[in-house]
């Protein structure tokens, strides 16, 4: 019996494709580095309470604006709070905003985009106009509006970032659906009398998954930077909750005296978003059917 199973596995096209994709991915050192670093940030965010040497709010008044030392790896800020610990805690807001905003945008944009591309006609035209309306409100303007209506918070910043990321995703999903509806297997399903819901969920959606994964990996770093921007402006995470954007906003008052306070959180944002971008670029190549290597 086991013999048959192995034989089936070698012929099984899905398993073969998975193996091929994994092989292609592992041949791209930058993508692998991106994945590893991104995972490090995600783990840091999850396990911040365990890893961080100090809690985010612990003040050490004997070491205000201290430089790096054994006690404080990256020094301390104006209230004597450990910068390294705050960067670890701050990863939570960034990762949370990055991932949730992207998921929110996906949940909203993908069904709309698929419907527009699959049905075309007036549905497509209406959705295209609505997308244009969404595009006319950049995420910062949406965030400003939400902060006015609901008050500034990480949740509202995440919603604003999700809305901001949606138009591009709608267009991508629409484009994919437009191409996929012409595929033979979709026509075959139609001929077999499959319902629209079945065609969209069983044939169209699974076949655009790789494109969507790449888009998600690119949307996450954009949202991470967006969260930092909003928190920096006071429209996102509210102090004393640590966030990379809040840390940079605080550091602005000490640019001449303690420039290191502005340097470390920025490097964290940069590395975190670079890792996701490297991963996204790598995945795009891996999934690209023109890729031969």
């Amino acid at each position, binding site marked *: 019996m086991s013999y048959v199973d192995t034989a089936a596995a070698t012929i099984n096209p899905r398993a073969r494709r998975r193996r091929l994709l994994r092989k292609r991915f592992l041949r791209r050192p930058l993508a692998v580095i991106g994945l590893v670093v991104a995972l490090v940030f995600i783990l840091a965010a999850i396990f911040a309470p365990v890893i961080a040497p100090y809690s985010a709010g612990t003040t050490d008044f004997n070491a205000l604006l201290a430089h790096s030392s054994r006690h404080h790896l990256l020094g301390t800020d104006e209230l004597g709070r450990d910068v390294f610990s705050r960067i670890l805690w701050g990863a939570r807001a960034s990762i949370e905003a990055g991932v949730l905003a992207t998921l929110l945008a996906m949940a909203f944009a993908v069904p709309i985009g698929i419907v527009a591309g699959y049905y075309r006609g007036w549905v497509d035209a209406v959705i295209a106009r609505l997308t244009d309306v969404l595009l006319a*409100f950049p995420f910062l303007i949406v965030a*400003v509006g939400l902060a*006015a209506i609901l008050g500034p918070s990480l949740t509202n910043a995440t919603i604003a970032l999700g809305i901001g990321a949606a138009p591009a995703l709608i267009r991508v999903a629409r484009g994919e659906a437009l191409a996929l509806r012409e595929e033979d297997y979709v026509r075959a399903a139609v001929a077999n009398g499959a319902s629209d819901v079945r065609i969209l969920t069983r044939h169209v959606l699974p076949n655009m998954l790789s494109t969507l994964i790449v888009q998600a990996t690119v949307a996450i770093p954009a949202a991470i930077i967006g969260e930092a921007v909003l928190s920096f402006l006071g429209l996102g995470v509210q102090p004393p909750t640590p966030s990379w954007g809040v840390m940079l906003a605080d550091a602005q008052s000490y640019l*001449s005296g303690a420039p290191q306070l502005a340097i470390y959180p920025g490097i964290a944002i940069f590395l975190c978003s670079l890792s996701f971008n490297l991963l996204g*670029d790598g995945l795009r190549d891996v999934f690209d059917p023109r890729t031969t290597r």
Partner: protein
Amino acid sequence: MGGFLLRKAGAALIVVFCASIVVFAGVRALPGGPAQALGGENRDPSVVAAINHAYGLDRPLPVQYVKWIGHALRGDLGLDSRQLPVAHTIVTRIPITLELAFLAVLIGTVIGVVAGVVAAVRRGKASDHAATATALVGLSVPHFWLGLMMIIAFAVDLQWLPAGGYVSFGAHPIQNLEHMVMPAIVLGTGLSAVLMRQTRSAMLNSLGADYVRTARAKGLSEWAVIGKHALRNSLITVTTVVGLQLGALISGAVITEQIFVIPGFGRLTLEAINQRDYTLLQGVVLVAATGYVVVNLLVDVVYSLLNPRIRVSGSTAA
């Protein structure tokens, strides 16, 4: 081409209309409503009712909307909390942001397109790898942080440039540019990174196309092939990308102006929210959304001029 632009203009009008409804509805969704914002600490129901009546806020919403949009179309966006006309405040702030945006787009386009062309022409060589890597860094770096780093380097340490502030071009052109150079670079980097990647891939496509081979076969110089044939076609992509990046540019202007203390439209947006000045906020958001749509329409005009397929047939390529 006329038909194409007419259709685009019609679509833009619809978008502005929908956007105005969103703005209108947003202000009505404010906690306590505009009446309480105007009444300040005075929460007496009779005062609120009086304000509601005076401003017509007790009328049906569609009536209120028509009245509001009618005023807006005549350039009347109401009075802010200091009783200054919102439209006037916005009009005085916009030129500053337009200058910043113009310089940023200029810097971003020049760097992005040149780097993209070089990377595509020298594909696989060191300069290609360097440009591609720089673009990836440019995409991943938070631009406002880059701004802070530039202030530390060029204003605090080297003292070459002012850390912030604004001098109008009319008053002192040199000082104006000194104040604008760092903000423009900060705002332009993101654009240049996106443009570099798009230009590179568009150029790679054009360089592999038949008409480029024909141009080479005709014996045209390499410069003529790249400049007149490949690049011209890649510019279509570039225009689209610039148009799509407008939203990012508006968001970017807000934070760049905040960091460099530039009293432009972006900073006005933050002032409106920080002072809870809802009339001002409403005006700012409406103008931002309309401005976005108008500039996108201009991008479509440029696009149709560059793209012969639209110029000749008038068919939508969208």
